[in-house]
């Protein structure tokens, strides 16, 4: 069970310092100052950037404003990834604060999804939870929950209420004692510089022989390149929430404590910086 409360709190309250700069091509009435913000790792961009929008709307004419979208060093940022994942994947070892460029026109329809309202974010968030629970408990727990419980999960995330969220999320982190863990671990392994978006496969937390699987076991199975063989230099960093857990960390524990609010274990594998 997830009762390493400190770990949970640290995971929840993780922040990334960000500097939002308006795209210079945008038509402004006067110069727009950059906007600084500490973004929560576990949330989503459209959820926390209202102030950014207001700030930049002040210097723009109403008729020039379309849907806001973000981009980092040329890469449009997918809003449906958690912010922490975006940062770890794109700008993990760069200079802080993270500089994001704000655009108001030329929305890249090919790369990004539209997000007209918060209900879209909520739908995406809930579907991730359901997907995760399908893997963990064959959807039993999430289906036993009532609609207000789902709402509580979403509201907890939206309003940044740790206790409110975890009151419900505990149930999703439980498993029958005889099992030893979830049915399958919900995880996604993101690779930088890859055509494939992410790796997501079925993986049990306990081996058929009864051994608990670790992070290393998972990587060995799913992304063996990430592992460093003896004698070699480390080529990849395996980041979860901006830290590198030891490879012998039990996968079940990781899923319980280091999952995002959407109950997925988002793992970023990035090449080690050469400098």
């Amino acid at each position, binding site marked *: 069970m997830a009762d390493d409360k400190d770990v949970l709190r640290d995971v929840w309250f*993780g*922040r990334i310092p960000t500097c939002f700069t308006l795209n210079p091509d945008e038509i402004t009435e006067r110069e727009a100052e950059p906007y600084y913000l*500490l973004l929560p790792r576990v949330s989503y961009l459209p959820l926390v950037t209202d102030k950014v929008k207001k*700030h930049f709307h002040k210097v723009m004419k109403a008729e020039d404003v379309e849907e806001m979208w973000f981009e980092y060093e040329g890469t449009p940022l997918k809003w449906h990834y958690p912010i922490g994942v975006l940062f770890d994947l794109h700008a993990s070892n760069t200079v*802080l604060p993270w500089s994001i460029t704000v655009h108001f026109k030329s929305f890249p329809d090919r790369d990004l999804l539209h997000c007209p309202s918060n209900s879209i974010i909520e739908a995406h968030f809930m579907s991730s939870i359901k997907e995760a629970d399908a893997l963990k408990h064959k959807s039993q727990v999430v289906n036993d929950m009532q609609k207000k419980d789902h709402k509580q999960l979403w509201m907890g995330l939206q309003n940044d209420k740790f206790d409110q969220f975890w009151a419900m999320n505990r149930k999703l982190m439980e498993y029958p004692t005889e099992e030893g863990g979830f049915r399958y671990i919900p995880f996604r392994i993101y690779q930088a510089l890859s055509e494939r978006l992410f790796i997501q496969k079925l993986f049990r937390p306990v081996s058929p022989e009864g051994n608990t699987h670790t992070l290393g076991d998972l990587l060995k199975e799913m992304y063996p390149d990430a592992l460093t063989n003896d004698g070699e230099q480390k080529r990849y960093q395996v980041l979860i929430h901006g830290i590198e857990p*030891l490879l012998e*960390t039990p996968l079940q524990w990781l899923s319980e404590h280091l999952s995002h609010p959407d109950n997925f274990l988002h793992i970023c594998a990035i090449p080690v910086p050469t400098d």
Partner: protein
Amino acid sequence: MEWKRHVSEQLKLRDRIQRQTFEEIVHQYNRLLEKSDLQAVLTERYQTDKYDVQRGHEAGSADSARSDLLQQEMAQMRIRHQEELTELHKKRGELAQSVIELNNQIQQKDREIQTNEARMLEYQQQISSLEGDCRELRNSLQELEQANQTLKDEYDALQITFSALEEKLRKTTEDNQELVSRWMAEKAQEANRLNAENEKDSRRRQAKLQKDLADAAKEPLPIEPDDDIEVLAEDGVKGAGETSPNRPMSKTLSRKPSQPPPGGLLDSISNIFGRRRSANSFSTSPEPTESPSGLCAEVRVPSTALHVFEAHDGEVNAVRFSPGSRLLATGGMDRRVKLWEVVAGRCEAKGALTGSNAGITSIEFDSAGSYLLAASNDFASRIWTVEDYRLRHTLTGHSGKVLSARFLLDNARIVSGSYDRTLKLWDLRSKVCMKTVFAGSSCNDIVCTEQCVMSGHFDKKVRFWDIRAESIVREIELMGRVTSLDLNHDRSELLTCSRDDLLKIIDLRTNAIRQTFSAQGFKCGADWTRVTFSPDGSYVAGGSAEGALYVWNVLTGKVDRTLDRNHNSAINSVSWSPSGAYVASVEKGSKAILWSDM
């Protein structure tokens, strides 16, 4: 847990680097940004003011256009903000309104729910009470049905019993009728037998008498002038009687004409010839042993009870000495007349005369003493011959109890008085009622003289009837119901007893009350209490309701003797023997007492 510790450390490190270093800076930066924005707004406003003032001073300033523009923009923004504000206010008002309305609705619904619940409760209570009532009603209905059923069964049973009883009744009535008809037939047979016997008898006597007469006519016989006709008890003395009719007739004619007994004798003799009368002993020859009635000399006031004896089963109503004082006849409610012989101070039972169907009310001997007339409660009077105790005649015709019957002085007729308020005159030859007189009141007692019949009635009157004229000659009213009448030996005085407990002597010539007798304890016991003269008319005797016999002296009018120790119940009748020696009294309690002064 190495890895766990590692994870914790890594997280803390990350936070230190990524968050804590920038947190304060970002916060302060944002504050500065806000401040600068505010400054910008303020500056703009001040600038517009300045432009306004300047415009006021300088007209047509080049900057005015720009400031105007700015002003306009500001104004527009303000207006827009105002509009937004008002719109928000309005919306807020509307929302508040809707909230209030919804609240009201909710309250209303709550109230409705409450009333509905209250009503439902009420209905439930009603339902339960109605169910209770229904159950009770069903129970009572069941009980009623059961009771009804039992009643029906009882009724059926009763119906069956009733029809059975009806059947029984019918059968019994039939049997009864059959028995009655058989009994009637038997009675008719018996009557026929009796008649046949009588006929035979009379024929025999007739023949014998004829023969005797024929014999007697052949020889002369001495005649005694002072012969009075006596009743003989045996057959033997017929011969002597033959001759006397002529002599005594002449003799008696020369004597007091008021003594009709010999005339009566003649009548009876002629009756023999004229009719087939069964006369046993014909009162022709005198018996020296019997002293003649009417001229009795030795009247003795009784003082002791010589013989107390049970006379009848039940009440004894009537008592009479025979004219010869030898026999005593008593009649009672046991329907019999019993004859007793007075011998040596005792009464020996001689026989009983039967034939009456109900109690005997009065007894009389005819002047010869050979016939006894008794009136009965069965509406008839009967005549027996004394000698052989045989019933000779039954006189029916009254429609009520016959309370008194007397021979008229010629012994050929009988007068009877009845409860049916009539007096009937009977002819013994034809045995038919010759006359019926309506008296108007029940007749309790009768006495007869040659011309007159006196009757005492319930309506306190004594009526005097003329025999021939059949009408009332006189009426005397007394103070109480007349229970008894008696004549003295020369028929000059009438003794009455009435329910006012007084005995009165009425002089028949003057029709005045000569004497009244009463006594302290004397109470008339019944409507038929009989009193009597002594044979010489100097005493009067009567019995009271307490069982005391009173003897009054006629001359003094006072009680001569009271004999109250022997009777236990009311004395119904008293008779003084013609010889004067004995008095007989009978009581309600079936006893008879023979008194004398010995």
